[in-house]
C-alpha cells in the first residue's frame, strides 16, 4: 500500500474498522460512540458498517460501562470501552484497577480480561481542570494493566490494532491535541513491536525520553537545539506498560544526559518513574542528574494562556539542555 496523508483520528478509526472486520468478537461501547460517532469523531460512521449491536451507545454511567466491558471480556467478547475523557477515570477506577487489572491474578489465572479502554487526555483545548488531565501515572502504577500512548499516526493505528490482540486489559490513551495531526503514512508498513520504544531523532548529546504529544514538543526542541549545534536524541516510549528500558538505556549510556518529558504534573507521575529508572540503571554513565520537565503541580487552568504555560514548552527544554551542556 502507498503512503497517504492521514490523520491520527482517521488512523484510529481505521484500526477499529480493520480489527472489527477481522474479529467478530470486538464490540465498542461508550457514550456517544455509535450514532454520534464519538465525542472526538474516532468512531464516526462505524455504526453504519457494524450496526448498533457492535457500536453500543451507553447511558452516562462510567463505572458500569467499564464494569460491563470487564464482564463482556470475561465471557467471550473483546470490548473496546470508550471513556470520553481520561479525567473520568476517577469514576471508573475501581472497575479498572480493582477488577480488570486483578481478575486474572485473583482467580489464579483462570480468566483473562481482554479489553481495551480507549480514552483521550491532555491539554490543548482549554477545557479546564476536569477535562485536561494526564492521568497515565495512575494506570502505570497498577500491576495488570497494559498502557499505550501513541504519538504518531502510524502508532495510533498499529498500537490500537495490537491492543486488540492482547490477552490482558489495555488502557489506550490518545491525546486530544493530536487528533487532527496529519502525517504521510503507509498503514500497511510494519512498525516496531508493542513494548518497544522508537528513536524519533538520533543524537549524541542528550536523550529526551517522552511519549504522546510531548514527543512533538521534544522534536521541536531538538530542531532548535540542532541550530545551536546540539544533537538531541528523542525517544518515544509508545507504551508505558511494558516500557522499553533497553532502548532508553542504550541511548543514555551513549549521551550521558537525560531529560524526561511528560505533560502530567511533575510530582509522582510517569516522569518520576522514568527518571528514577534511568538514574538507577545508568548511574555510572550520567554526567548530569536526570532532569524532569513536566506539567506544573497545579490543576489545569481554563485560560488558554495559563493552560499553555502550565505544560512543558520547547523553549524551556532548549534552555535546560543548553544549561546542562553549558553551551
Amino acid at each position: 500500500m502507498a503512503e497517504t496523508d492521514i490523520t491520527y483520528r482517521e488512523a484510529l478509526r481505521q484500526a477499529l474498522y480493520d480489527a472489527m472486520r477481522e474479529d467478530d468478537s470486538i464490540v465498542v461501547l461508550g457514550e456517544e460512540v455509535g450514532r454520534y460517532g464519538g465525542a472526538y469523531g474516532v468512531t464516526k460512521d462505524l455504526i453504519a458498517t457494524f450496526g448498533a449491536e457492535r457500536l453500543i451507545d451507553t447511558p452516562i454511567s462510567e463505572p458500569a460501562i467499564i464494569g460491563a466491558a470487564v464482564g463482556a471480556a470475561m465471557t467471550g467478547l473483546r470490548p473496546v470501552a470508550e471513556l470520553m475523557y481520561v479525567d473520568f477515570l476517577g469514576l471508573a477506577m475501581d472497575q479498572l484497577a480493582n477488577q480488570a487489572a486483578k481478575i486474572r491474578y485473583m482467580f489464579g489465572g483462570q480468566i483473562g480480561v481482554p479489553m481495551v479502554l480507549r480514552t483521550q487526555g491532555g491539554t490543548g483545548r482549554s477545557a479546564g481542570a476536569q477535562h485536561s488531565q494526564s492521568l497515565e501515572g495512575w494506570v502505570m502504577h497498577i500491576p495488570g494493566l497494559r498502557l499505550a500512548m501513541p504519538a504518531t499516526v502510524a502508532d495510533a493505528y498499529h498500537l490500537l490494532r495490537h491492543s486488540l490482540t492482547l490477552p490482558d486489559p489495555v488502557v489506550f490513551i490518545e491525546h486530544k491535541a493530536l487528533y487532527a495531526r496529519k502525517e504521510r503514512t503507509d498503514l500497511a508498513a510494519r512498525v516496531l513491536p508493542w513494548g518497544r520504544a522508537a528513536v524519533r531523532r538520533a543524537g549524541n548529546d542528550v536523550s529526551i525520553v517522552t511519549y504522546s504529544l510531548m514527543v512533538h514538543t521534544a522534536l521541536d526542541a531538538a530542531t532548535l537545539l540542532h541550530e545551536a549545534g546540539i544533537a538531541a536524541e528523542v525517544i518515544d516510549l509508545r507504551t508505558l506498560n511494558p516500557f522499553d528500558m533497553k532502548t532508553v538505556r542504550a541511548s543514555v549510556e551513549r549521551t550521558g544526559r537525560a531529560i524526561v518529558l511528560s505533560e502530567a504534573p511533575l510530582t509522582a507521575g510517569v516522569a518520576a518513574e522514568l527518571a528514577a529508572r534511568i538514574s538507577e540503571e545508568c548511574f555510572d554513565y550520567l554526567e548530569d542528574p536526570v532532569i524532569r520537565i513536566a506539567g506544573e503541580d497545579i490543576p489545569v487552568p481554563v485560560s488558554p494562556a495559563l493552560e499553555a504555560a502550565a505544560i512543558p514548552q520547547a523553549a524551556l527544554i532548549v534552555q535546560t539542555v543548553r544549561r546542562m551542556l553549558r553551551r
Partner: protein
Amino acid sequence: MSAEANLPLRDFYCTMRRIRTFEERVAELYVRGLSAGSMLHLSIGEEGAAAGVCAAMRPQDSFTTHHRGHGIFLARGADPNRMMAEIAGKSAGYCAGKGGSMHIADRALGHLGANAIVGGGIPHVVGAGLSYKRLRKNAVAIAFFGDGAMQQGIVHESMNMAALWDLPVMFVCINNQYGMGTRIDQATRVADFAQRAIALGLAGASVDGEDVEAVFARAQDLLDGARAGRPALLTVSCFRFFGHGRMDKSPYRSNEEEDSGRRRDPIAAARAALLERTPLTAAALDALDAAIAREMDAAIAFAEQAPAPALQAMFDDVYAPSEPQPEPLATRLDRILAER
C-alpha cells in the same frame, strides 16, 4: 429589573430574556474565538427551569449546577459582566479566569459551583444539607443537573442519603430530552424520573418547563417540603434549542423535531401571557428586551476589555494562601541546575 411583587410573570420574563440574550452573546463570543475553552453549553430553551426554580429559592439557599449552568446562575442574580469575563478566561471573572464556562461559582450568591463532571456536583448538596441541618440555617441546597446525569450512580446514592437523613435538599433535573446526542429513551427505559425518587423515599414531581409559573409553583412547594426535611426531585421538561455544545449541529435530530421543540419556548409563552393578562404592551416588552440587549452588550465589552490573568496567577489557589505553595518548574530547574 425591579421586582414587582404583584407581577411575578414580568420578572420571570425579564429573567428568561436576560438568560437568552446572555447566551446569544456568549455564542458570539465563542464564534469570535474570545471565549476561553473549547466547551460551551447554552441553556437556550431551558430558561423556564432556571427562572422558575431560582425565584423560589431564598437568599440563604445554595446550589450546584451542571455544565449547562449559565442560565441558572443568572436567574440567581449573577452579574453578567463577571460571568462573561469568566467565560472569556479573564481575571475579572467570577473565578479569576481559572474556571471558565463550566466552573463558575460564587460564594456570595450561594453558588457552590458548576461542574464539568456529569453528576459531579450532585453529592455536594447532600453535604450542604448536612451543614444546614446541623448549623440550623433554615437553608436548602439544590442540585441542578440534566436528564443524562440521572443514569449516574451518584445521583441514586445522593438521593438515598438525602431521604435517609431528612435533609433540606432538592434535586432538580432539567430534562431537555438529550445527553449530547443520546435521546432519553436511548438512555433509560423509564423516563419518568419521579418514580426513582419515590422508590428512594423522596418526593418526586415533574413539571413542564415551558410554563415558568408552573415551575415556580412546583419548586416553591417542594422547597417548602425540603426546608422541613422532606427532600425532593423535581424534573423540569424542556427542549435544548441548539446543539450540545457550540460545535454540535445536532445531526441526530430531525428538522421536525427541532421545529416542534423550539415551539416549546418559555419566553414566547410568558410574553403571550403577559400581553394577554396584563396591561403590558408589546412596545413595553420590546423596550425591556432592548434594555437587556444593551446590558448584555455591555457585558461583552466588559469581558473583552478585561485584562488576561497574569501568568504567575496560575500558581495561586492550588492551596490556601497561608500554606506551602507549589514550586514552579522554572524555579525548580534553576535550583537544580544552578547548584551544580
